[in-house]
């Protein structure tokens, strides 16, 4: 019995050695490619767990820069337009999914307090910007973020085409808030026009 047991153990050890040699051979010849593939899969195809509560954003008022930026699709501010009695959440991003929830912030523009162009957009529905036509020059807009409150005064309104991006210029010289929505407000289907409200930061 002992001899059978010994012989069996020796053969199992040989099997282990063959396995180690096979795995070793694969690792030596393809190890780097395997590691790269695993890293790529983890980077591209594996959902990351959200970290939950994040630290509040801080703004350097001298440099006019945020220390970190909110993630795409997250709510970071509230916009109030007292003239049309609207208080709406503002989300980072301008995809249709984001706009379903509230006002979108174009990620190609600056954030309130950074001293540049800020571009917001929203639907012309009754719960959003349907009453934009009632806005006049001199009306106030307040944007309340996690890092401060910013007040703006409307100085212009324009109807532009959806492709006229030069009418919504991105610059860093002075802080301007530009909010647009689809036009006409009672359009059916798809419209190529946008109604833009321009506002300057109150100093």
């Amino acid at each position: 019995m002992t001899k059978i047991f010994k012989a069996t153990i020796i053969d199992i050890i040989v099997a282990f050695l063959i396995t180690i040699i096979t795995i070793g051979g694969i690792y030596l010849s393809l190890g780097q490619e395997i590691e790269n593939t695993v890293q790529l899969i983890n980077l591209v195809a594996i959902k990351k767990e959200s970290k939950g509560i994040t630290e509040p954003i801080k703004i350097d008022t001298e440099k006019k820069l945020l220390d970190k930026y909110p993630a795409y699709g997250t709510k970071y501010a509230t916009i109030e337009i007292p003239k049309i009695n609207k208080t709406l959440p503002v989300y980072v991003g301008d995809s249709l999914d984001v706009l379903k929830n509230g006002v979108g912030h174009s990620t190609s523009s600056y954030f309130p307090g950074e001293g540049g162009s800020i571009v917001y957009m929203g639907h012309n529905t009754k719960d959003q910007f349907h009453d934009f036509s009632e806005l006049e020059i001199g009306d106030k807009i307040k944007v309340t973020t996690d890092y401060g409150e910013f007040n703006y005064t409307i100085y212009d309104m324009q109807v532009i085409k959806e492709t006229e991006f030069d009418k919504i210029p991105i610059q860093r010289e002075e802080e301007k808030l530009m909010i647009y929505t689809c036009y006409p407000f009672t359009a059916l289907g798809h419209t190529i026009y946008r109604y833009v409200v321009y506002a300057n930061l109150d100093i």
Partner: protein
Amino acid sequence: MKILLNLIKYIIVILLTFCIIGLLIINIASSTILKKQYVLNKLEETNYYEEIQKLIQDGFENYIGPSGLDESVIVDIVSLEKIKEDTNTIVSNMYDGTNTELNTETLRTNLRNNIDEYLNHRKLTTSENESIEKFIDMIEEEYIINILHTNYENDIYKVINKGNNFAENVNLVLILVTVASILLILIFNVKQIAQAIANFGVAFTASGLFYIVIKIYIGIKINVQNLSVLSPAFSQAMISVVQNVLNSILTYSIILFILGVVCICIGNSIIIKNEMKKRSKKKEY
């Protein structure tokens, strides 16, 4: 001479191990991810079509806001059966190389009818008609994007076709080499078949162990449960496929390991018993 013969025997055992490893993975791949019907079954099992239907409807809702139309216009414009049919068309394009385009006429007609009804069949201006046609185009595009998810159907077909051809050719070669290895092991151990059984046992045990290690490695390195590809519905289907493949690998590897150990035990016990018989006969003389 004996050492050389033993060395050759072990090389053949190692070759047999490689063949078993290769045969297992090729046959698992051929019967799962490379097989169209398997993928279609998985989509059905994971309620993919129902999830895609919800995704499509959510996508349509994004366009209602700026359209000035009521949500009722996008209700029931595409049925679950149509979604299944179109998804199966895409899968066929990927697996069979057919280049069938999706037919969205029913969707367009249903949407147009719903809009007409909502607007009480009133006469529209030319620009209103144009805007509504554009809206219908956008809804159609949203549907195609959500069903299709990729512009690389043809490329995927090439990869799957290559995979199937490779599997077929390599499978044949591996079967031939396996048979040759088994015959050589039997020839080398013609005087003691029990030794051949023990050698087969070593090959089975080694290949079983190899796949157990692979399964553990994948389990540690990749969080399969959190796989996210294209859409949540597609991800769920992919998670199911990957888990099924990994479970198959684990099952076969455990079977091989146990079978290997059993063969080693049987082989060695017959060898030792025969040796003891020979010795006791010698003592008698």
